[in-house]
């Protein structure tokens, strides 16, 4: 049973969508991670915490496949997950250093991840 007995799949889907949307928005990240945004605060850890800890994207990918089988969006979600998994240990290490978040935001690998997230959002909106 992938879905919890009281879990609402639609709410879960919306939360995953919003978390990926935040991941895709590097301009907001530049402001929110550096404390310069007027409303939002965030960080590398926090954006991944929402995606992996709060809404468990890995379990969602398994759930998605069980409902919709393997399609283009599923492939993109898997690719995003693999790219993040490959990068996150490095990212968590960099983040602990002074100006760590700024370094991550300029890292081509992180920029690739945000581009992949953009691709998912545009696919999701179709």
């Amino acid at each position, binding site marked *: 049973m992938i879905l919890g007995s*009281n879990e609402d799949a639609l709410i879960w889907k919306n939360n995953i969508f919003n978390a990926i949307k935040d991941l895709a928005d590097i301009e907001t990240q530049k402001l929110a991670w550096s404390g310069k945004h007027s409303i*939002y*605060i965030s960080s590398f850890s926090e954006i991944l915490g929402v995606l992996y800890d*709060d809404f468990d994207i890995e379990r969602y990918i398994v759930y998605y496949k069980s409902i919709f089988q393997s399609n283009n969006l599923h492939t993109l979600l898997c690719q995003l997950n693999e790219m993040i998994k490959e990068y*996150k240990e490095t990212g*968590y290490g960099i*983040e602990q250093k002074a100006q760590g978040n700024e370094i991550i935001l300029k890292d081509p690998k992180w920029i690739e991840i945000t581009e992949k997230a953009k691709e998912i959002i545009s696919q999701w909106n179709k």
Partner: protein
Amino acid sequence: MRKLLLILVILLSFVIVNAQNPFVEYGYTPKIATLSQGQYNEFFDNDTLVQIGSVLFNTNSKQIVAFVETDTLYSEATLEPDIVSRWISPDPLASERPSWSPYNFCSNNPIIRIDPDGMLDDIVITGENNSSVTLKTDMIDVKVNASSLGVNFGGNYTLQGEDVLSAGLDIVGVFDPTGIADGVAAKIAWDNGDYWGATISGVSVLPAGDILKVGKIGKDVKTINNAIDAFKQIGPAGDAGATVTKQLPNSWIKKTSDNKQGTKFLDPQNPSGNNVRVQNGNPNSPNPAQQKPYVKQTQNGKTVDVNGKQVDPKTKEAHIPKQDFKYKKD
């Protein structure tokens, strides 16, 4: 023209050299150690009153203000108890402990207290078989050997939280002859409305007062062992034995967070809808709300603030300071 320039330079040098001689009006020219041969002002002190040897000199009025009889700044050699075991430069964390001198070392008690990392205070309790528990606190820095109580923690653990801190202070109080640990324990108990506990700890400040603690120590060891059990379950990061863990239903799943710097708690029946995540915080974060431990709570699929009101997960309000967190059921 060259001669004129030379005369001007000599005159200027004379003026500068004299400007650095505070004893001119007394007709005395001391030998002044100088690196620039009088070219630059070598008073490396921005204070108006500076001490030169035994002379107290006002740099604004260029007047000698007083003659100092003893030089108390360098009296370590005298081994006066209130001066020894101090640093000669202020503690960078002095602002965190305004009641202490910024120059103190180990709260002026290097016999019983330790400061291995220069950071804020910790309590270290060692037990049998080299086991130990380090309690994170900014109230007291102390190391005691409790193996004589037959305590064995079964490993080396770092814990935090008010419950374990109170328990640890009780144990430390048995071994701490100064009574500081008992005093701190009494204050915590009083602040939490535990007036009987405060009385026991308060009386224990007295040399024979620890007799009252006999029944309490067993409970304290149990509290610490419970925290160690939680620590074993969720790893070194997060909230072992502290404010958040004890508020959440026991049935919730506990896991170390993805960044290994926190703990996540999940409702097994609705893990993506009801969850709580405790993060240790990152002191290097430019966002103050993320520098210290904070909690994110998702309730029925919505991120909520300290009052249970729905907020955007990216707002400051969504980052609840750990000490303010109160679990709200649906």
